[in-house]
């Protein structure tokens, strides 16, 4: 079982990202689950979304999770939420920030000793898609860190998932995924 927790703000696309990832993984024959905690769901409110991946049908519906990966797609949430809650010894973090990994760990002591990767998904999204929607770049970074799928296969799959959007937006998302894949450290 692979488990992922997303930290996001409502409106940044964590639910779409989690469902998109589940959709891609499902096409490879794995079982998937994607869900979120909405609360009162005000735009901008901190929220979390979740993925589970397994070889057999996923029957566990508890919301409690000790994640293998934590995705943080808004830079401020590292400071305003506890992104390390319920962590395991080997939990990996991919965090959106303009800082380097060393700089980030210095200003957030909770991250000391953890396996941290950083990538500026907000800037990437702004410069490619034209809006600060950091969900698809985060998935590009995840492909690099996890080695789950070949990046070309992943991009082709995401083209289908994003299928109903205008071609220009789909192309921009592909650039964003590739840039985050190349830039995550």
């Amino acid at each position, binding site marked *: 079982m692979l488990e992922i927790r997303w930290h996001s703000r409502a409106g940044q696309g964590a639910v779409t990202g989690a469902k998109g990832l*589940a959709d891609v993984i499902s*096409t490879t024959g794995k079982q998937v*689950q994607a*869900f979120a905690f*909405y609360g009162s769901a005000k735009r901008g409110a901190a929220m979390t979304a979740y993925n589970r991946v397994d070889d057999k049908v996923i029957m566990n519906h*508890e*919301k409690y999770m000790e994640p293998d990966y934590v995705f943080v797609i808004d830079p401020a949430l590292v400071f305003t939420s506890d992104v390390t809650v319920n962590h395991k010894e080997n939990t990996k973090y991919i965090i959106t920030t303009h800082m380097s990994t060393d700089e980030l760990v210095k200003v957030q002591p909770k991250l000391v000793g953890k396996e941290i990767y950083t990538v500026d998904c907000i800037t990437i999204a702004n410069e490619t898609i034209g809006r600060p929607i950091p969900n698809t770049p985060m998935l590009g970074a995840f492909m690099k860190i996890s080695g789950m799928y070949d990046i070309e296969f992943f991009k082709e799959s995401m083209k289908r998932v994003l299928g109903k959007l205008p071609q220009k937006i789909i192309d921009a998302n592909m650039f964003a995924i590739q840039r985050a894949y190349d830039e995550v450290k």
Partner: protein
Amino acid sequence: MAFDKMELKDVEVWDGNYAAAQALRQAQVDVVAAYPITPSTPIVEGYAKFTADGYVEGEFVMVESEHAAMSACIGAAAAGGRVATATSSQGYALMVETLYQASGMRLPIVLNVVNRALAAPLNVNGDHSDMYLGRDSGWIQLDAFSPQEAYDLNLIAFKVCEDHEIRLPCMVHQDGFMTSHTAQGVNTLSDDAAYGFVGEYKPMNDMLDFEHPVTHGVQTEEDWHFEHKARQHNDLMTKVIPKIQAAFNDFEKLSGRKYNIVERYDMDDADVCVVCMGTSVETAREVALEMRAKGIKAGVVGLRVIRPFPFFEIAEALRGVKSIAVLDRSSPNGAAGMLFNEIAGALYNADTKALLSGYIYGLGGRDLTKKHLVDLFNELQANADAGKVTTKLQQFIGVRGPKLAYL
């Protein structure tokens, strides 16, 4: 036909709401009248979009309340159409008066109830308070534990409730957010296979059949009211469960997916078991398997059909078990839980004299964790070993503050 078909992958990643909306599209529902409410909104939104995009030859009716939504559904069903809608929580509560109208007028409407807590305090998350509210309303109630089942049971619901021997409305329940907003793999049927299973709608006593004028919604007073109610109850008690079983059998032939009136998991040699509904059934199944690895013979019983209540099937499923926990996800507010009472009633005259204890859990979407269930199975084993219930009969799982226990 004047609508487009949709190409679906064999496995689609859908949440429970979208799965239900796709089933309404494949059943080619004629009329959906709805007033949206969280967390059921995407079901009727989905139908509205499919209709606007030319995938359904039907009509979406916007109304000003859930009372009006069900009223419009009743009108459309009496006119002779295939009808469905969806609601949750406060909307369901507002619908209650018209729920009794729909069943008393013997109108086969399918209502998706995406289970959510009832205010106050206001809460949009999933529990079974609304589901319990409708249990005497004369509807058939089916319960889905996952998005796959929300899809399948919608198709099955039309087939059962529209049968001319039944003609009773049917609710399909799913857990708010835990099923409705959780995306999982759903095995699909093609549009032709799904519609072929549900079948073309054949109205009966429809008001638009001008050759055979009928009256709906009459007043009867003491001369006939009792006979009408008794006949409705008789049909629920004697005709519905065999018809659901027949539909389950047909559905298994079509899809390979097998449903049962009462679902039993690892029950053949179980010493201890949990009886529950909704997503909790699946989480409990996983924990039961883990308990077996630790030497506790654990099993799970899930209610697929809530009304008519499967009295004998429950007694059969629980035969030989030593210690049973019944889980109610609704505050009984001054009584034992509804499911606890129903199970106690089903077992009272049965051979099984199991130790029975009740638990209230998960109100307002409070998480039921695997850890909770491990503790629960251990407590049941302690009861079985002691030969008596070692706790109070009613306890709470997952509530903060001092431990609560009653009875």
